[in-house]
């Protein structure tokens, strides 16, 4: 359990002095708290005796007050230092996770769902924070107070202490026992909530279909079911939870009951004074929290360790795509060669690309055609090393791309991915993502190339318009054109476009391509498309099928020969 938490050590060391001061404050709090009942006992015992003087009581109470003030200050101190440090550790750790994520490749992001990563950065972080803050407090406080009070009681009252304390350890046991179930039930409630959210989201996203197919009643029924299930899960937690706290009060109450019966007898038999009796009440009440704390510590630490384990899985993932130790300078003006490339995704053994040999000529536009799953997108992602090619299979300037500095390689290859992703900032910031210092006129020039100018006129803030979260306010075609502009703005020597116009109508596509080729004259372009009409503008086309190149040639040549290209052309109504 503690093995996982070791990750926290370097962080904890950073705040060592704060922790030490916090612990001293905590000890001072405990000492002061334990001393106060003794003062009350003295005051009560002096009642009804000759030694009674109001002055003495006053002195005692003033002493008690000054101790209470110090305890208050010490309480503030440990919260400030210990809990404050745990918050800082949380910040450091969160930053570390994110910085690490920035170095990981799609191999990692493909294997771990984004919701999962989010859960680690939020929920798991919270339990780690509790383990590094509250758990320490509860543990130290619990040990000091319970050992302190119990030994004090034993030394002073012997057997009576034993009898009255008897029920209290059950508090710790119950917490340990119930903790497991509470955790389990709580998780099922959370899962129920996700289910509910997902069902709601799906309904509202698909409302058009639901209305067209008159599925309203069906969905209402299903939603009611999800709700009932969620309610049931909540109630299961409530049945346990609702019993849990009253039960702890009940057990601590039993302790007071035993004190009443046996302590009362001891007072009658003059074994203890009424003051002792009062002090015992205080001490027994005081014991409840540390005993609860001990139980919680175990739970919090267990949960923290499990969470830390999940976070460690991220931190331990080594970045698999990195710059070479001694990078070579980049050749801008050269062909890109694919040599005997066979590629399977990490962790799988069926290759999606098989023995491909190809050349993307500099200054030319090379097209790629292929069915879904033919390996086109994979091939494109290998070029900027978003996926890592085997050694010696991808060459620029006859040098393995793995020998270039990663940042330099990527800077020279512009990329328009198949799935458009925009950030929820302004259109301006999205387009200038690869060239943050670009001026507005430069951006507007790009906008006119990708036919955005008309669209921008309809937006309230022009290029300053915020893109709704994940681009919800824009149409698919607008998003694709912005993504195209983003890749175009830095004017990279090589531009890779993975089916960039799938949501743009043919008319617009045609005019964008016209301007695009003008702008890109003399530069290298690689263009995947499903449309033969688009590919007919390329200098050379590769046809991929099942991970292999099945045809190659100029669009004119391909149209002449029997094969996939011609077949598709016919389907798309080209005059063959």
């Amino acid at each position: 359990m503690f093995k996982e938490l070791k990750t926290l050590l370097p962080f904890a060391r950073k705040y060592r002095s704060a922790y030490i001061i916090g612990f001293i404050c905590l000890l001072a709090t405990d000492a002061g708290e334990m001393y106060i009942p003794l003062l009350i006992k003295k005051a009560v015992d002096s009642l009804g005796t000759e030694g009674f003087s109001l002055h003495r009581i006053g002195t005692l109470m003033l002493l008690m007050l000054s101790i209470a003030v110090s305890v208050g200050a010490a309480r503030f101190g440990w919260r400030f230092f210990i809990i404050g440090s745990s918050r800082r550790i949380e910040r450091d750790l969160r930053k570390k996770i994110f910085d690490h994520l920035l170095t990981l490749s799609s191999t990692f992001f493909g294997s771990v769902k984004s919701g999962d990563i989010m859960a680690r950065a939020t929920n798991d972080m919270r339990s780690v924070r509790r383990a590094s803050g509250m758990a320490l407090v509860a543990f130290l406080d619990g040990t000091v107070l319970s050992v302190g009070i119990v030994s004090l009681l034993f030394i002073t009252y012997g057997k009576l202490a034993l009898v009255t304390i008897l029920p209290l350890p059950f508090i710790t046991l119950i917490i340990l026992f119930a903790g497991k179930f509470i955790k389990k039930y709580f998780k099922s409630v959370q899962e129920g909530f996700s289910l509910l959210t997902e069902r709601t989201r799906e309904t509202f996203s698909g409302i058009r279909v639901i209305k067209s197919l008159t599925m309203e009643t069906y969905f209402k029924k299903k939603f009611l079911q999800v709700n009932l299930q969620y309610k049931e899960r909540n109630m299961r937690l409530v049945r346990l939870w609702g019993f849990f706290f009253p039960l702890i009060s009940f057990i601590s109450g039993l302790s007071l009951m035993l004190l009443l019966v046996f302590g009362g007898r001891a007072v009658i038999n003059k074994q203890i004074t009424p003051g002792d009796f009062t002090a015992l009440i205080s001490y027994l009440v005081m014991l409840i929290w540390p005993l609860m704390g001990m139980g919680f510590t175990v739970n919090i630490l267990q949960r923290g360790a499990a969470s830390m384990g999940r976070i460690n899985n991220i931190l331990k993932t080594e970045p698999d795509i990195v710059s070479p130790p001694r990078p070579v300078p980049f050749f801008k003006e050269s062909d890109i060669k694919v040599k005997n490339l066979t590629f399977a995704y990490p962790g799988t053994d069926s290759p999606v690309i098989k023995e491909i040999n190809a050349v993307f000529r500099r200054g030319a536009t090379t097209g790629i055609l292929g069915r879904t799953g033919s390996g086109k997108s994979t091939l494109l992602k290998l070029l900027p090393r978003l996926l890592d090619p085997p050694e010696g299979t991808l060459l620029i300037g006859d040098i393995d791309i793995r020998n270039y500095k990663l940042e330099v390689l990527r800077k020279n290859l512009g990329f328009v991915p198949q799935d458009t992703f925009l950030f929820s900032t302004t259109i301006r910031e999205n387009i200038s993502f690869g060239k943050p210092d670009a001026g507005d006129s430069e951006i507007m020039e790009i906008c006119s190339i990708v036919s955005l100018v008309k669209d921008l006129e309809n937006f309230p803030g022009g290029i300053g318009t915020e893109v709704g979260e994940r681009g919800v306010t824009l149409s698919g075609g607008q998003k694709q054109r912005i993504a195209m502009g983003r890749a175009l703005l830095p004017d990279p020597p090589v531009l890779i476009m993975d089916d960039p116009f799938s949501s743009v109508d043919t008319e617009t596509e045609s005019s964008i391509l016209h301007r695009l080729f003008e702008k890109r004259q003399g530069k290298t372009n690689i263009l995947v498309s499903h449309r033969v009409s688009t590919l007919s503008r390329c200098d050379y086309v590769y046809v991929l099928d099942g991970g292999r190149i099945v045809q190659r040639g100029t669009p004119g040549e391909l149209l002449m020969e029997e094969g996939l290209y011609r077949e598709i052309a016919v389907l798309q109504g080209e005059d063959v």
Partner: protein
Amino acid sequence: MKEEPLIKKYDPEIMRKILSFSKPYTLHMTIAVIALLLATAAELLLPVVIKTAIDGNILTPDPDPAALTAKGVLYFFLLLAVLLFSFVQVYLLAFTGQMVMKDIRVSLYNHIIRQSLNFMSKTPVGSLVSRVTNDVETLNEFFTSVAASVLKDFSLIIGVLVTIFFLNTRLALITALSLPPVFIAAAVFRAKARNAYRRVRSSVARVNAFLSEHIMGMEIIQMFGREESTGKAFGKENEVLLRAQLLELYVFAFFRPLMNLFTSVTVGVVIYFGSSRVQEGDLSLGVLIAFLSLVQKFYRPVLDFAEKFTILQSAMAGGERVFSLMEESEIIEDTGKGKSWEPGRGKIEFKNVSFSYKQGEPVLKNLSFTVYPGETAAIAGYTGAGKTTIANLLTRMWEIDEGEICIDGVNIQDIPLEDLRKGVIPVQQDVFLFAESIEENVRAGLDLTEEQTAQAARAAQAAGFIEKLPGKYRFDLSENAANISTGQRQLLSFARVLARNPAIIILDEATGSIDTETEKNIQKAVERLTENRTSLVIAHRLSTIRHADRILVLGSGRVQEEGTHEELLSKKGLYYNLYKLQYTR
């Protein structure tokens, strides 16, 4: 991203609405309140029992150990009563909360689902979802925090006061002197804690939004070499969150110990004044001890109470959003309700139809055309000519501004909405499938046998790929059906329409490119779809256009040309230009 208010002042109107939802559970709530009062009373009696034991059985001239045991037994039963009543109260209030949440959720969901597409397209899905899920969840706080804790804290505060006054008026008056500073401190705490809470909540939301967005866009960040600046931007958000959390920590770190200090002060005062009274014989030691116990129960609820107030206010904010959404309504009225209608052979008539999504921007102007039973008519036109709008109007997803649309001679306004939408089914451009099994998606709420389901799939040419999937018809689609291809999604959407066998279909072809393998299947499926029924095809592909019996060319909101492909081409008009530009190059 628009920030929503997290906190709202107490609003009796919202309270009234929540209470109206909890009416069916009045009995539960009444019992819960009674149980709460009994539990509190029992809890307050505990120190009183100790007091009577001390004064009556221990510190008397003739102590009575047997009676002491009896007091112990009484104490035990009181503890048991506290346990039992507390549980009953917690359970019943939680139950009420859960039931009310369920009821509000279901009625909100049913309300939203009835809204017109116009309303739905104006409101982002994300915000509707968070109304139904998170905002309703905060309403639960009324029952778990506000009703339960506040009632309990409140009755405890009152109960302690009553009990101490009952025990000894003078000492109680002295104790009560500590109340004003305590309440002032609590009020200050409340204000501070609320601000801190608000700041933490909004920074947490920002950090989470940042994280989730940048995790999704990681490839882009890396591709454009923006790792460092993104890391820095995150560091900034992270720092803001830390500051907010520390502020909250300081507020709590100050006020929690302060309340403990108040307890100690009061204990000191009670002992100081109490001891002289005891000495003079005006006060028994038992009462003094009971005072000490009760005083210690007093201050925590005050702080709790203040803390819960913030939660109440955030629930108010959630409640306001929920209830104001319930009041917004924009539904297509079912004007044909109760009338009987049987789909005939499926003749579609548009008579002088005008329509605009936004006022002043007409999409259709005096549009008239007829599609005859069994015919396949294609609608062609430039992007934005209103092709897709026709489908929206025919199924009354939107209402026309002027004119008349008839099916088999009956105005669609006079057809029950459900019957109309059963008779006329559109197949949309953007296929939306549900994250359920293939089978469920084909059935889409109908009661179909396995054979009927498979039949529909075969007709839609979808059976081929389905048979190859693991689990076949039981294969579960993931979110947005991401685990099958675009073309396959299209085929499934055909299957679910074929399963319904409507009299009229409207086929809005996908603009996007589809992989070639399924393209052939899609063409075959389209043939099946349009067979023996009236079809209106919003065409983006030449192949579909060529198969149409008649082509209507839409321009400036009306039909500009009509005829077969060849006829229109020879006209060398709008269609000819369109064809040259859009379908060839």
